[in-house]
């Protein structure tokens, strides 16, 4: 029995519990639902939950724990066997797993039955070929010990699956019976469903928090690993980035950080004023019908995948800037440049800044506008002296969000800025950013042991700390103005 059908069975039991619970509650109230503390639906729901949730939890834990237990047992057996002293146990283990899986497939396709399986000898290449026919590739001929271990693994897995099915169904039925027995006229089934909803919401918010902790944890782990094999001083204070696959790399973060900041700066210099002004136009000057058309258009612009912007940079903006500005002025001959990527990234961020700021400006109370107009202020005086100060905390937030996006942007940089780690002031030169280097260090031949790949984690950590710092600054700025203005 596989997990999917077990799920269906649990669901069926719970559904039956729903109807039984409702019926029982109604029967206890003598058919008069008004006598019940909770609606009959709540009683049904409570039974459903007590039948399904504990059973699913048992199933989840079982699925998680069983492989650990069985593989630990087989691993012990492998280690105890002197034959495998030369090869690492984990490699043998993966062979065992593959063979066991192949045997399962063979049985499933009817190529062999359990009796034939028991008689199967470890006649090397023959078994290997048969496994190959069901799509399982094994590195070498299957030895007798591996086959034996695979048989044990199959048996254990099979027993585990049966055990799990029995346990899960038992728990589901127990939950069903227990919660049915709890039903009475006074039973507060409504509160049960209330608590369940609370738990659900709490769990959902926990997911985000736990994921963040998990991400930071794994980053931290690999970063520490990196700094053990590469000196931190070189990483933080070297101005050279030149990874060598033969070793002896220079992995200084500064050229990348510089590129990141330079490109982001160009992007923000374009996006913030343009976005803010268009937001002011939209929320303060534009007529309602115009706003109704333009705002969704802007939001569509914000939804274009960045790789499309990257194409725009590569095919249009880059060559244009090179031919019209960089080459005539003798500033460079590369179509990938900080200016190209920065401008396109800025274009990408304009709708982002303007849409967020527009919402914020729109939320400024009408009373403030009236008050200013009532004193004989013009519209632009009102905007500059009343609306913008009032909306400032939100606008700062919007700008910092945009900055975070600029710093984390990858596709536009790959296609528009280039891949050359370089520290320079000329915006018409190709440079590169942290994100691009993270990708390029991790793609290709990945063995997580050399500083050349592990540096990606240190870079990611630096990026994380950097954006975190930016958010903290935003928070402080916003709080300061909040105190002053509200």
């Amino acid at each position: 029995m596989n997990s999917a059908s077990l799920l269906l069975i649990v669901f069926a039991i719970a559904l039956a519990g729903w109807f039984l619970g409702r019926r029982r509650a109604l029967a206890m109230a003598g058919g008069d639902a008004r006598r019940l503390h909770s609606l009959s639906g709540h009683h049904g729901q409570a039974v459903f939950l007590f039948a399904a949730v504990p059973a699913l939890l048992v199933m989840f834990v079982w699925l998680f724990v069983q492989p650990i237990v069985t593989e630990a047992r087989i691993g012990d057996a492998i280690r105890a066997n002197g034959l495998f002293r030369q090869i690492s146990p984990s490699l043998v283990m993966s062979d065992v797993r593959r063979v066991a899986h192949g045997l399962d497939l063979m049985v499933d396709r009817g190529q062999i039955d359990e009796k034939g399986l028991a008689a199967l000898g470890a006649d090397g290449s023959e078994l290997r070929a048969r496994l190959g026919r069901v799509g399982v590739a094994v590195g070498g001929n299957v030895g007798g010990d591996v086959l034996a271990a695979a048989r044990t693994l199959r048996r254990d897995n099979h027993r585990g699956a049966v055990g799990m099915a029995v346990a899960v169904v038992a728990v589901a039925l127990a939950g069903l019976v227990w919660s049915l027995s709890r039903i009475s006229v006074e039973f507060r089934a409504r509160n049960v469903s209330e608590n369940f909803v609370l738990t659900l919401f709490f769990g959902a918010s926990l997911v985000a928090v736990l994921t963040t902790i998990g991400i930071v944890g794994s980053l931290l782990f690999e970063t520490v690993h990196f700094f053990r094999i590469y000196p931190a001083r070189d990483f933080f204070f070297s101005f050279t980035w030149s990874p060598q696959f033969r070793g002896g790399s220079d992995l200084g973060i500064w050229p990348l950080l510089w590129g990141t900041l330079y490109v982001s700066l160009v992007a923000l210099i374009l996006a913030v004023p343009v976005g803010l002004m268009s937001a002011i136009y939209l929320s303060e000057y534009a007529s309602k019908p115009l706003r109704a058309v333009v705002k969704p258009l802007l939001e569509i612009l914000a939804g274009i995948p960045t790789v499309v912007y990257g194409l725009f940079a590569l095919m249009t903006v880059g060559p244009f800037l090179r031919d019209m500005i960089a080459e005539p002025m003798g500033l460079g001959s590369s179509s990938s440049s900080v200016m190209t990527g920065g401008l396109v990234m800025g274009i990408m961020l304009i709708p982002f800044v303007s849409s967020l700021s527009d919402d914020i400006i729109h939320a400024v109370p009408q009373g403030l506008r009236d008050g200013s107009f009532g004193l004989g202020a013009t519209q632009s005086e009102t905007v500059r002296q009343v609306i913008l100060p009032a909306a400032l905390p939100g606008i700062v937030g919007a700008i910092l969000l945009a900055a975070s996006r600029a710093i984390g942007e990858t596709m536009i940089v790959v296609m528009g800025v280039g891949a050359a780690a370089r520290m320079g002031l000329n915006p018409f030169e190709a440079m590169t950013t942290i994100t691009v280097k993270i990708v390029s260090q991790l793609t290709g031949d990945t063995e997580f042991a050399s500083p050349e790949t592990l540096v990606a984690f240190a870079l990611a950590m630096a990026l994380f700390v950097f954006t975190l710092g930016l958010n903290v600054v935003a928070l402080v700025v916003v709080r300061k103005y909040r105190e002053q203005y509200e």
Partner: protein
Amino acid sequence: MSDATGLKIAARDVDVFYGDHHAIKDVSVAIADRTVTAFIGPSGCGKSTFLRCLNRMNDTIDVCRVSGTIELDGEDIYDRRVDPVQLRARVGMVFQKPNPFPKSIFDNVAYGPRIHGLTRSRGELDEVVENALRRAALWDEVKDRLSAPGTGLSGGQQQRLCIARAVATAPEVLLMDEPCSALDPIATAQIEELIDELRGNFSVVIVTHSMQQAARVSQRTAFFHLGDLVEFGETGQIFTNPQDPRTESYITGRIG
């Protein structure tokens, strides 16, 4: 400026439409200088709408249409040549809900003088601000914290700050749209006292829900009902000897 009994604002045959809704029907009112004129009437009778016509605040509402003539010192304020921004500097407004700007107390009061360039030096501006705050009976409470945010004041103080802000712009007419409806009785009493003092320099028009307030602060009262101006006259006469049965019903509490 005209003398104490002179005509300040003359509205003739004013109609206001919000889209299809006929909010003000053929209203004519003469507002005297250096007098407090109260507009009373049940909710939705158009008194606030009419008030907002007097400084063209309704211009900011797209669907609002105004016809008829409203003259300030004999000049039609809806004339093409009149700049509504300049008009609003002459006809100031205080709103129902206190709406101090997100600035310091000083900057709130200095807002009008600054945008209209009324002062030549910082010293002069300081003087204008102090005078306005004194006029609004707020100076003693805030003189030590002029750089504190205006939004940090209590509701009554905020409303007095808004009055000081309007006064600092040196308007000729002050329109007040239910200035006390968000305030407690003590703050209300302070504002009413203030209104009475302001009468010395301005023409004040106040919209109020409270008939006691109209009786206390105003010399002339206009009663609006369903967009019509039902009755307009001396406050004493409106409250003691109303001519129209609708006015009588309203002030005795039978309608409203």
